[in-house]
Protein backbone atom coordinates (compact mmCIF):
# COMPACT_ATOMS: atom_id res chain seq x y z
CA UNK A 1 0.00 0.00 0.00
CA UNK A 2 1.29 3.45 -0.87
CA UNK A 3 2.39 5.71 1.98
CA UNK A 4 2.78 8.69 -0.33
CA UNK A 5 1.04 11.79 1.06
CA UNK A 6 1.42 15.57 0.87
CA UNK A 7 3.69 17.33 3.35
CA UNK A 8 0.62 19.00 4.84
CA UNK A 9 -1.02 15.66 5.52
CA UNK A 10 2.15 14.00 6.78
CA UNK A 11 2.72 16.69 9.41
CA UNK A 12 -0.99 16.90 10.30
CA UNK A 13 -1.11 13.14 10.91
CA UNK A 14 2.23 12.49 12.58
CA UNK A 15 3.49 15.58 14.44
CA UNK A 16 1.50 16.58 17.52
CA UNK A 17 1.84 19.35 20.08
CA UNK A 18 4.26 18.29 22.82
CA UNK A 19 6.04 15.68 20.67
CA UNK A 20 9.76 15.13 20.62
CA UNK A 21 10.85 15.56 17.02
CA UNK A 22 14.13 14.84 15.32
CA UNK A 23 14.82 16.23 11.85
CA UNK A 24 18.22 14.63 11.26
CA UNK A 25 20.78 15.24 8.49
CA UNK A 26 24.32 16.54 9.08
CA UNK A 27 24.63 19.65 6.87
CA UNK A 28 23.41 17.38 4.06
CA UNK A 29 19.72 16.56 3.43
CA UNK A 30 18.08 18.69 6.13
CA UNK A 31 14.30 18.47 5.77
CA UNK A 32 13.60 22.21 5.72
CA UNK A 33 10.31 21.66 3.91
CA UNK A 34 9.03 19.61 6.86
CA UNK A 35 10.24 22.17 9.40
CA UNK A 36 8.42 24.92 7.55
CA UNK A 37 5.20 22.91 7.43
CA UNK A 38 5.44 22.33 11.20
CA UNK A 39 5.74 26.11 11.62
CA UNK A 40 2.76 26.71 9.30
CA UNK A 41 0.64 24.23 11.25
CA UNK A 42 1.66 26.06 14.44
CA UNK A 43 2.81 23.06 16.46
CA UNK A 44 3.71 24.00 20.03
CA UNK A 45 5.77 22.67 22.98
CA UNK A 46 7.96 20.48 20.80
CA UNK A 47 11.19 19.00 22.08
CA UNK A 48 13.49 19.55 19.12
CA UNK A 49 16.32 17.02 18.91
CA UNK A 50 19.20 17.24 16.45
CA UNK A 51 23.01 17.17 16.56
CA UNK A 52 23.25 20.50 14.74
CA UNK A 53 20.05 22.54 15.14
CA UNK A 54 21.11 24.54 12.06
CA UNK A 55 18.91 27.32 10.71
CA UNK A 56 15.83 25.12 10.61
CA UNK A 57 15.56 24.88 14.40
CA UNK A 58 16.48 28.55 14.72
CA UNK A 59 13.44 29.27 12.55
CA UNK A 60 11.25 26.89 14.57
CA UNK A 61 12.40 28.49 17.85
CA UNK A 62 11.65 31.93 16.43
CA UNK A 63 8.20 30.70 15.37
CA UNK A 64 7.41 29.54 18.91
CA UNK A 65 7.30 25.79 18.18
CA UNK A 66 9.94 24.73 20.72
CA UNK A 67 9.75 24.09 24.44
CA UNK A 68 13.10 22.35 24.65
CA UNK A 69 16.14 21.61 22.52
CA UNK A 70 18.37 18.52 22.71
CA UNK A 71 21.57 19.09 20.73
CA UNK A 72 25.34 19.05 20.43
CA UNK A 73 26.36 22.02 18.25
CA UNK A 74 24.14 25.07 17.87
CA UNK A 75 25.77 27.35 15.34
CA UNK A 76 25.31 28.47 11.75
CA UNK A 77 27.76 26.08 10.03
CA UNK A 78 30.50 28.00 8.26
CA UNK A 79 28.84 31.34 8.99
CA UNK A 80 28.32 32.12 12.69
CA UNK A 81 25.50 32.11 15.22
CA UNK A 82 21.93 30.94 15.62
CA UNK A 83 20.39 34.16 16.85
CA UNK A 84 16.89 33.03 17.84
CA UNK A 85 18.52 30.27 19.90
CA UNK A 86 20.94 32.74 21.45
CA UNK A 87 18.18 35.20 22.31
CA UNK A 88 16.27 32.41 24.05
CA UNK A 89 19.35 31.32 26.04
CA UNK A 90 20.81 34.76 26.73
CA UNK A 91 17.60 36.02 28.33
CA UNK A 92 16.47 38.23 25.47
CA UNK A 93 13.43 36.19 24.38
CA UNK A 94 11.13 33.50 25.76
CA UNK A 95 13.47 30.86 27.22
CA UNK A 96 13.75 27.28 26.02
CA UNK A 97 15.03 24.35 28.04
CA UNK A 98 18.37 22.87 26.90
CA UNK A 99 19.75 19.36 27.11
CA UNK A 100 23.26 19.42 25.73
CA UNK A 101 25.70 16.70 24.64
CA UNK A 102 28.58 16.39 22.19
CA UNK A 103 28.16 14.87 18.74
CA UNK A 104 29.42 11.51 19.97
CA UNK A 105 26.97 11.71 22.86
CA UNK A 106 24.03 12.39 20.55
CA UNK A 107 25.06 9.62 18.15
CA UNK A 108 25.38 7.27 21.15
CA UNK A 109 21.92 8.28 22.41
CA UNK A 110 20.40 7.48 19.03
CA UNK A 111 22.33 4.21 18.76
CA UNK A 112 20.86 3.17 22.13
CA UNK A 113 17.43 4.31 20.99
CA UNK A 114 17.64 2.34 17.76
CA UNK A 115 18.83 -0.77 19.61
CA UNK A 116 16.16 -0.38 22.33
CA UNK A 117 18.79 -0.29 25.05
CA UNK A 118 18.36 2.08 28.03
CA UNK A 119 21.76 3.72 27.59
CA UNK A 120 25.00 3.67 25.61
CA UNK A 121 28.53 3.67 27.01
CA UNK A 122 31.39 5.74 25.66
CA UNK A 123 34.84 6.95 26.65
CA UNK A 124 34.22 10.65 27.04
CA UNK A 125 33.45 13.68 29.22
CA UNK A 126 35.79 13.08 32.19
CA UNK A 127 37.58 16.32 33.01
CA UNK A 128 34.98 18.48 31.28
CA UNK A 129 32.04 20.58 32.51
CA UNK A 130 29.53 18.82 30.26
CA UNK A 131 28.30 16.36 32.95
CA UNK A 132 27.97 19.31 35.33
CA UNK A 133 25.79 21.17 32.83
CA UNK A 134 23.82 18.04 31.97
CA UNK A 135 23.22 15.53 34.81
CA UNK A 136 21.87 13.03 32.27
CA UNK A 137 25.52 12.33 31.43
CA UNK A 138 26.48 9.70 33.99
CA UNK A 139 29.03 6.93 34.44
CA UNK A 140 28.96 3.16 34.78
CA UNK A 141 31.58 0.69 35.91
CA UNK A 142 32.28 -1.90 33.25
CA UNK A 143 31.41 -5.37 34.63
CA UNK A 144 34.26 -6.94 32.61
CA UNK A 145 37.19 -4.56 33.06
CA UNK A 146 36.22 -2.43 36.06
CA UNK A 147 36.82 0.64 33.93
CA UNK A 148 34.63 3.69 34.47
CA UNK A 149 32.79 4.72 31.30
CA UNK A 150 30.53 7.65 30.51
CA UNK A 151 26.91 6.88 29.70
CA UNK A 152 24.14 8.72 27.91
CA UNK A 153 20.46 7.74 27.96
CA UNK A 154 18.67 6.36 24.92
CA UNK A 155 16.91 8.91 22.74
CA UNK A 156 13.60 7.67 21.33
CA UNK A 157 11.87 10.59 19.64
CA UNK A 158 8.15 10.46 18.86
CA UNK A 159 8.86 11.43 15.26
CA UNK A 160 11.90 11.31 12.99
CA UNK A 161 11.85 13.25 9.75
CA UNK A 162 14.51 12.37 7.21
CA UNK A 163 15.16 13.87 3.79
CA UNK A 164 16.61 11.43 1.25
CA UNK A 165 17.58 11.47 -2.40
CA UNK A 166 15.13 8.81 -3.48
CA UNK A 167 12.46 6.52 -2.07
CA UNK A 168 9.67 4.31 -3.32
CA UNK A 169 6.03 4.71 -2.27
CA UNK A 170 6.54 2.17 0.53
CA UNK A 171 9.19 4.32 2.17
CA UNK A 172 12.29 2.31 1.23
CA UNK A 173 14.74 5.18 1.25
CA UNK A 174 18.16 5.57 -0.33
CA UNK A 175 20.89 8.05 0.56
CA UNK A 176 24.38 8.66 -0.75
CA UNK A 177 26.92 11.24 0.27
CA UNK A 178 27.08 12.14 3.96
CA UNK A 179 25.00 9.68 5.98
CA UNK A 180 24.94 11.58 9.27
CA UNK A 181 22.92 9.70 11.84
CA UNK A 182 19.64 9.42 9.94
CA UNK A 183 19.50 5.65 10.07
CA UNK A 184 19.84 5.56 13.86
CA UNK A 185 17.34 8.42 14.23
CA UNK A 186 14.76 6.63 12.11
CA UNK A 187 15.13 3.30 13.93
CA UNK A 188 14.99 5.08 17.31
CA UNK A 189 11.75 6.96 16.57
CA UNK A 190 8.16 5.82 17.02
CA UNK A 191 7.01 7.34 13.72
CA UNK A 192 9.11 8.13 10.63
CA UNK A 193 8.42 10.58 7.82
CA UNK A 194 10.59 10.16 4.73
CA UNK A 195 10.86 13.18 2.44
CA UNK A 196 12.48 12.58 -0.95
CA UNK A 197 13.83 14.42 -3.96
CA UNK A 198 12.54 11.65 -6.25
CA UNK A 199 9.96 8.92 -6.02
CA UNK A 200 11.29 5.88 -7.83
CA UNK A 201 9.94 2.49 -8.69
CA UNK A 202 10.60 -0.29 -6.21
CA UNK A 203 12.75 -1.91 -8.92
CA UNK A 204 15.20 1.01 -8.72
CA UNK A 205 15.60 0.41 -4.99
CA UNK A 206 16.03 -3.33 -5.50
CA UNK A 207 18.68 -2.76 -8.18
CA UNK A 208 20.97 -1.11 -5.58
CA UNK A 209 19.97 -2.36 -2.11
CA UNK A 210 23.24 -1.32 -0.40
CA UNK A 211 22.12 2.27 -0.87
CA UNK A 212 19.00 1.81 1.29
CA UNK A 213 19.41 3.30 4.78
CA UNK A 214 15.78 3.15 5.92
CA UNK A 215 13.46 0.25 5.10
CA UNK A 216 9.80 0.99 4.39
CA UNK A 217 8.74 -1.23 7.27
CA UNK A 218 9.59 1.51 9.81
CA UNK A 219 8.19 4.37 7.72
CA UNK A 220 4.81 6.02 8.42
CA UNK A 221 4.61 8.47 5.52
CA UNK A 222 6.49 9.34 2.33
CA UNK A 223 6.48 12.87 0.92
CA UNK A 224 7.77 13.81 -2.52
CA UNK A 225 9.37 17.23 -2.19
CA UNK A 226 11.94 18.26 -4.82
CA UNK A 227 14.34 20.92 -3.43
CA UNK A 228 12.89 20.08 -0.02
CA UNK A 229 16.28 20.35 1.67
CA UNK A 230 17.12 23.88 0.44
CA UNK A 231 19.13 25.82 1.71
CA UNK A 232 20.97 22.65 2.74
CA UNK A 233 21.87 20.31 -0.09
CA UNK A 234 21.26 16.97 -1.73
CA UNK A 235 24.39 15.35 -3.15
CA UNK A 236 23.98 14.82 -6.88
CA UNK A 237 20.93 17.13 -6.99
CA UNK A 238 21.85 20.59 -5.74
CA UNK A 239 24.64 22.33 -3.85
CA UNK A 240 24.34 23.95 -0.44
CA UNK A 241 23.09 27.54 -0.68
CA UNK A 242 26.04 29.00 1.21
CA UNK A 243 24.90 32.54 0.38
CA UNK A 244 21.67 31.88 2.22
CA UNK A 245 23.55 30.65 5.29
CA UNK A 246 25.86 33.68 5.26
CA UNK A 247 23.01 36.13 4.69
CA UNK A 248 21.02 34.52 7.50
CA UNK A 249 23.30 36.31 9.96
CA UNK A 250 21.71 39.58 8.85
CA UNK A 251 18.16 38.22 8.74
CA UNK A 252 18.22 36.61 12.18
CA UNK A 253 20.31 39.08 14.19
CA UNK A 254 17.17 41.15 14.67
CA UNK A 255 13.98 39.55 16.01
CA UNK A 256 11.67 41.66 13.85
CA UNK A 257 13.59 40.95 10.68
CA UNK A 258 13.48 37.22 11.39
CA UNK A 259 9.71 37.49 11.94
CA UNK A 260 9.38 39.24 8.56
CA UNK A 261 11.39 36.46 6.93
CA UNK A 262 9.06 33.82 8.40
CA UNK A 263 6.04 35.82 7.17
CA UNK A 264 7.40 36.01 3.65
CA UNK A 265 8.99 32.58 3.23
CA UNK A 266 7.03 30.25 5.54
CA UNK A 267 3.61 31.62 6.49
CA UNK A 268 3.38 33.49 3.18
CA UNK A 269 3.70 30.40 0.99
CA UNK A 270 1.38 27.42 0.80
CA UNK A 271 4.01 24.77 0.38
CA UNK A 272 7.54 24.01 -0.79
CA UNK A 273 6.60 24.37 -4.47
CA UNK A 274 5.58 27.99 -3.82
CA UNK A 275 8.74 28.61 -1.79
CA UNK A 276 10.87 27.38 -4.69
CA UNK A 277 8.82 29.23 -7.35
CA UNK A 278 9.42 32.41 -5.34
CA UNK A 279 13.18 32.27 -5.97
CA UNK A 280 13.89 31.83 -9.67
CA UNK A 281 17.48 31.06 -10.60
CA UNK A 282 18.08 28.42 -7.93
CA UNK A 283 18.58 25.83 -10.63
CA UNK A 284 21.30 27.79 -12.45
CA UNK A 285 22.98 28.74 -9.21
CA UNK A 286 22.93 25.44 -7.33
CA UNK A 287 22.14 22.48 -9.60
CA UNK A 288 24.80 19.81 -9.08
CA UNK A 289 27.38 19.12 -11.75
CA UNK A 290 27.17 15.44 -12.55
CA UNK A 291 29.73 13.04 -10.99
CA UNK A 292 28.15 9.59 -11.48
CA UNK A 293 29.48 6.62 -9.54
CA UNK A 294 30.87 3.45 -11.00
CA UNK A 295 28.44 0.60 -11.26
CA UNK A 296 28.67 -2.51 -9.10
CA UNK A 297 27.45 -5.96 -10.03
CA UNK A 298 24.97 -7.63 -7.68
CA UNK A 299 25.00 -10.85 -9.70
CA UNK A 300 25.76 -14.30 -8.30
Amino acid sequence: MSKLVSMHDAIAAHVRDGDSVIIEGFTHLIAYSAGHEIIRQRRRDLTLCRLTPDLIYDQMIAAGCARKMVFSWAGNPGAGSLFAFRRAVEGKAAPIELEEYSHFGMVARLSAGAAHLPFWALRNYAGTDLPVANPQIKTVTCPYTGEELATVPALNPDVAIVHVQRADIHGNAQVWGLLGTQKEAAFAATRVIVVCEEIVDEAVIRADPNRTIIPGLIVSAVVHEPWGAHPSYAQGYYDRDNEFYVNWEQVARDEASLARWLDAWVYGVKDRAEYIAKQPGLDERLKAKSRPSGVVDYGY
Partner: protein
Amino acid sequence: MTADYTPKELMACVAARELRDGEVVFVGIGLPNLACNLARATHAPKLLLIYESGAVGAVPERLPVSVGDPSLVTGCIMVASMADVFQSFLQGGRIEVGFLGGAQVDRWGNINTTVVGGSYEHPKVRLPGSGGAAEIAVHARRLLIIGALSPRMFPADVDFVTSPGNRYHGTPRSAFKHPGAGPRRVITDRAILEANDDTGELELSALYPGETVESVRAQVGWPLAVRDALGSVEPPSAEELRLLRDVLDPKRLFLKG
Protein backbone atom coordinates in the same frame (compact mmCIF):
# COMPACT_ATOMS: atom_id res chain seq x y z
CA MET B 1 60.18 45.35 8.77
CA THR B 2 57.15 45.38 6.51
CA ALA B 3 55.63 41.94 6.42
CA ASP B 4 54.12 40.92 3.12
CA TYR B 5 51.85 38.40 4.78
CA THR B 6 49.15 38.61 7.44
CA PRO B 7 49.31 37.01 10.90
CA LYS B 8 46.51 34.62 9.87
CA GLU B 9 48.44 33.50 6.81
CA LEU B 10 51.49 32.73 8.91
CA MET B 11 49.29 30.96 11.45
CA ALA B 12 47.88 28.72 8.70
CA CYS B 13 51.42 27.95 7.42
CA VAL B 14 52.78 27.13 10.87
CA ALA B 15 49.80 24.88 11.53
CA ALA B 16 50.31 23.10 8.20
CA ARG B 17 53.99 22.48 9.00
CA GLU B 18 52.95 20.69 12.21
CA LEU B 19 51.42 17.88 10.18
CA ARG B 20 53.53 14.98 8.98
CA ASP B 21 53.00 13.19 5.71
CA GLY B 22 50.81 10.11 6.04
CA GLU B 23 49.24 11.11 9.34
CA VAL B 24 45.53 10.63 9.98
CA VAL B 25 43.99 13.96 10.95
CA PHE B 26 40.54 14.70 12.32
CA VAL B 27 39.82 18.08 10.81
CA GLY B 28 37.72 20.91 12.20
CA ILE B 29 36.43 23.73 10.06
CA GLY B 30 38.05 27.13 9.56
CA LEU B 31 41.81 27.50 9.90
CA PRO B 32 42.40 23.82 10.81
CA ASN B 33 40.77 22.84 7.54
CA LEU B 34 42.82 25.38 5.61
CA ALA B 35 46.04 24.24 7.27
CA CYS B 36 45.35 20.57 6.51
CA ASN B 37 44.68 21.28 2.87
CA LEU B 38 47.81 23.45 2.67
CA ALA B 39 49.86 20.61 4.16
CA ARG B 40 48.35 18.21 1.64
CA ALA B 41 49.31 20.57 -1.21
CA THR B 42 52.90 20.97 0.03
CA HIS B 43 54.89 18.54 2.17
CA ALA B 44 52.19 16.04 3.14
CA PRO B 45 50.38 14.76 0.03
CA LYS B 46 49.47 11.53 1.83
CA LEU B 47 47.83 13.24 4.81
CA LEU B 48 44.53 11.46 5.44
CA LEU B 49 41.78 13.94 6.28
CA ILE B 50 38.77 12.74 8.26
CA TYR B 51 35.87 15.07 8.92
CA GLU B 52 33.28 14.50 11.65
CA SER B 53 30.61 14.52 8.95
CA GLY B 54 31.91 11.13 7.78
CA ALA B 55 34.13 12.03 4.81
CA VAL B 56 37.31 9.93 5.06
CA GLY B 57 40.31 10.69 2.84
CA ALA B 58 38.63 13.83 1.54
CA VAL B 59 40.28 15.65 -1.39
CA PRO B 60 38.12 18.79 -1.67
CA GLU B 61 38.41 20.61 -4.99
CA ARG B 62 37.14 23.80 -3.39
CA LEU B 63 37.56 25.19 0.11
CA PRO B 64 34.81 23.54 2.16
CA VAL B 65 32.65 26.17 3.82
CA SER B 66 31.54 23.72 6.50
CA VAL B 67 32.65 20.26 7.68
CA GLY B 68 29.62 18.88 5.85
CA ASP B 69 30.43 20.40 2.47
CA PRO B 70 29.52 18.22 -0.55
CA SER B 71 33.03 18.71 -2.00
CA LEU B 72 34.38 16.57 0.85
CA VAL B 73 32.41 13.59 -0.43
CA THR B 74 33.25 13.78 -4.14
CA GLY B 75 36.38 11.65 -4.62
CA CYS B 76 36.91 10.67 -0.97
CA ILE B 77 37.76 7.06 -0.11
CA MET B 78 34.88 6.37 2.28
CA VAL B 79 31.76 7.96 3.60
CA ALA B 80 31.28 6.69 7.14
CA SER B 81 28.13 7.10 9.17
CA MET B 82 28.67 9.39 12.16
CA ALA B 83 28.34 6.39 14.47
CA ASP B 84 31.30 4.83 12.62
CA VAL B 85 33.25 8.10 12.71
CA PHE B 86 33.00 8.44 16.48
CA GLN B 87 32.95 4.80 17.53
CA SER B 88 35.24 3.02 15.06
CA PHE B 89 37.58 5.77 13.87
CA LEU B 90 37.90 8.10 16.86
CA GLN B 91 37.19 5.88 19.89
CA GLY B 92 38.77 3.02 17.95
CA GLY B 93 42.10 4.84 18.20
CA ARG B 94 42.60 5.49 14.49
CA ILE B 95 43.09 9.25 14.73
CA GLU B 96 46.67 10.46 15.16
CA VAL B 97 46.09 14.20 15.18
CA GLY B 98 43.10 16.23 16.29
CA PHE B 99 42.98 19.84 15.20
CA LEU B 100 40.69 22.25 17.03
CA GLY B 101 39.97 25.94 17.24
CA GLY B 102 38.27 27.41 20.28
CA ALA B 103 36.68 30.53 21.67
CA GLN B 104 38.75 30.33 24.85
CA VAL B 105 41.89 28.34 25.62
CA ASP B 106 43.38 28.36 29.10
CA ARG B 107 46.72 27.75 30.80
CA TRP B 108 46.17 23.96 30.67
CA GLY B 109 44.86 23.77 27.14
CA ASN B 110 41.24 23.36 28.20
CA ILE B 111 38.96 24.64 25.45
CA ASN B 112 35.67 26.47 25.89
CA THR B 113 33.19 26.61 23.04
CA THR B 114 30.05 26.60 25.22
CA VAL B 115 29.38 29.79 27.22
CA VAL B 116 31.25 32.99 28.04
CA GLY B 117 30.35 35.08 31.08
CA GLY B 118 27.49 34.53 33.52
CA SER B 119 26.59 30.93 34.30
CA TYR B 120 25.82 27.92 32.11
CA GLU B 121 22.11 28.48 32.72
CA HIS B 122 22.28 32.25 32.22
CA PRO B 123 25.29 32.98 30.02
CA LYS B 124 26.30 36.38 28.75
CA VAL B 125 27.27 34.87 25.41
CA ARG B 126 26.08 31.48 24.26
CA LEU B 127 28.50 29.71 21.89
CA PRO B 128 27.63 26.68 19.72
CA GLY B 129 28.85 24.00 22.14
CA SER B 130 31.02 20.92 21.72
CA GLY B 131 30.12 19.44 18.39
CA GLY B 132 32.77 16.74 18.10
CA ALA B 133 35.42 18.74 19.98
CA ALA B 134 35.11 17.07 23.41
CA GLU B 135 35.68 13.56 22.03
CA ILE B 136 38.44 14.72 19.66
CA ALA B 137 40.28 16.18 22.68
CA VAL B 138 39.77 12.89 24.55
CA HIS B 139 40.80 10.50 21.80
CA ALA B 140 43.15 12.06 19.24
CA ARG B 141 46.65 10.81 19.99
CA ARG B 142 47.91 14.39 19.95
CA LEU B 143 45.90 17.57 19.83
CA LEU B 144 46.78 20.79 18.06
CA ILE B 145 44.90 23.96 18.91
CA ILE B 146 44.80 26.98 16.67
CA GLY B 147 43.65 30.47 17.62
CA ALA B 148 44.64 34.14 17.60
CA LEU B 149 46.12 35.39 20.87
CA SER B 150 44.24 37.89 23.01
CA PRO B 151 43.74 38.21 26.79
CA ARG B 152 40.03 37.46 26.30
CA MET B 153 40.70 34.29 24.29
CA PHE B 154 43.57 33.06 26.48
CA PRO B 155 42.45 33.50 30.12
CA ALA B 156 44.06 31.68 33.04
CA ASP B 157 40.89 29.60 33.38
CA VAL B 158 38.18 29.09 30.78
CA ASP B 159 34.58 29.87 31.77
CA PHE B 160 33.48 26.34 30.83
CA VAL B 161 35.54 23.27 29.98
CA THR B 162 34.03 21.88 26.79
CA SER B 163 37.07 19.91 25.62
CA PRO B 164 39.54 18.50 28.14
CA GLY B 165 43.07 19.85 28.32
CA ASN B 166 45.95 18.76 30.53
CA ARG B 167 44.49 19.63 33.95
CA TYR B 168 40.93 20.04 35.25
CA HIS B 169 40.44 22.05 38.46
CA GLY B 170 43.82 20.85 39.74
CA THR B 171 43.44 17.22 38.66
CA PRO B 172 46.00 16.15 36.07
CA ARG B 173 44.75 14.66 32.80
CA SER B 174 46.41 11.31 33.60
CA ALA B 175 43.80 10.73 36.34
CA PHE B 176 41.06 10.56 33.70
CA LYS B 177 42.84 7.87 31.65
CA HIS B 178 41.98 9.52 28.35
CA PRO B 179 43.41 7.57 25.41
CA GLY B 180 44.80 10.74 23.78
CA ALA B 181 47.81 12.71 25.02
CA GLY B 182 45.87 16.00 25.03
CA PRO B 183 46.91 19.41 23.73
CA ARG B 184 50.58 19.43 22.79
CA ARG B 185 50.86 22.65 20.83
CA VAL B 186 48.86 25.82 20.38
CA ILE B 187 49.45 27.64 17.09
CA THR B 188 48.64 31.33 17.44
CA ASP B 189 49.08 34.45 15.34
CA ARG B 190 52.20 35.56 17.29
CA ALA B 191 53.89 32.49 18.72
CA ILE B 192 53.75 28.78 19.36
CA LEU B 193 52.84 27.62 22.85
CA GLU B 194 53.76 24.11 23.92
CA ALA B 195 52.60 21.97 26.82
CA ASN B 196 55.15 21.25 29.53
CA ASP B 197 55.81 17.51 29.50
CA ASP B 198 55.50 17.21 33.28
CA THR B 199 52.79 19.69 34.24
CA GLY B 200 50.85 20.14 31.01
CA GLU B 201 51.02 23.92 31.37
CA LEU B 202 51.27 25.88 28.12
CA GLU B 203 54.62 27.65 27.72
CA LEU B 204 56.07 29.93 25.10
CA SER B 205 58.21 27.80 22.80
CA ALA B 206 58.69 29.82 19.59
CA LEU B 207 58.23 33.41 18.45
CA TYR B 208 57.07 34.60 15.05
CA PRO B 209 59.15 37.23 13.23
CA GLY B 210 58.77 40.64 14.87
CA GLU B 211 57.32 39.31 18.15
CA THR B 212 58.91 39.47 21.59
CA VAL B 213 58.36 37.62 24.86
CA GLU B 214 56.65 40.76 26.18
CA SER B 215 54.35 41.18 23.16
CA VAL B 216 53.15 37.60 23.59
CA ARG B 217 52.84 37.75 27.38
CA ALA B 218 50.63 40.82 27.05
CA GLN B 219 48.07 38.71 25.18
CA VAL B 220 47.86 35.87 27.70
CA GLY B 221 45.92 35.86 30.97
CA TRP B 222 48.46 34.01 33.10
CA PRO B 223 52.18 34.46 33.83
CA LEU B 224 53.39 32.70 30.71
CA ALA B 225 56.50 30.57 31.26
CA VAL B 226 59.18 30.91 28.61
CA ARG B 227 61.36 28.05 27.44
CA ASP B 228 65.13 28.44 27.70
CA ALA B 229 65.74 27.80 24.04
CA LEU B 230 63.09 29.73 22.14
CA GLY B 231 62.50 28.52 18.61
CA SER B 232 62.02 30.83 15.67
CA VAL B 233 59.48 30.50 12.91
CA GLU B 234 60.11 30.89 9.20
CA PRO B 235 57.79 33.34 7.45
CA PRO B 236 55.49 31.88 4.79
CA SER B 237 57.26 30.85 1.61
CA ALA B 238 56.18 32.30 -1.72
CA GLU B 239 54.67 28.93 -2.59
CA GLU B 240 52.70 28.69 0.66
CA LEU B 241 51.32 32.19 0.10
CA ARG B 242 50.43 31.42 -3.52
CA LEU B 243 48.53 28.28 -2.46
CA LEU B 244 46.68 30.05 0.36
CA ARG B 245 45.74 33.12 -1.64
CA ASP B 246 45.17 31.81 -5.15
CA VAL B 247 44.16 28.19 -4.69
CA LEU B 248 42.86 27.35 -1.22
CA ASP B 249 41.05 30.44 0.03
CA PRO B 250 40.80 32.94 -2.85
CA LYS B 251 37.68 34.53 -1.34
CA ARG B 252 39.52 34.89 2.01
CA LEU B 253 36.72 33.09 3.81
CA PHE B 254 39.01 32.00 6.64
CA LEU B 255 42.02 34.25 6.02
CA LYS B 256 40.24 37.56 6.46
CA GLY B 257 41.01 39.65 9.52
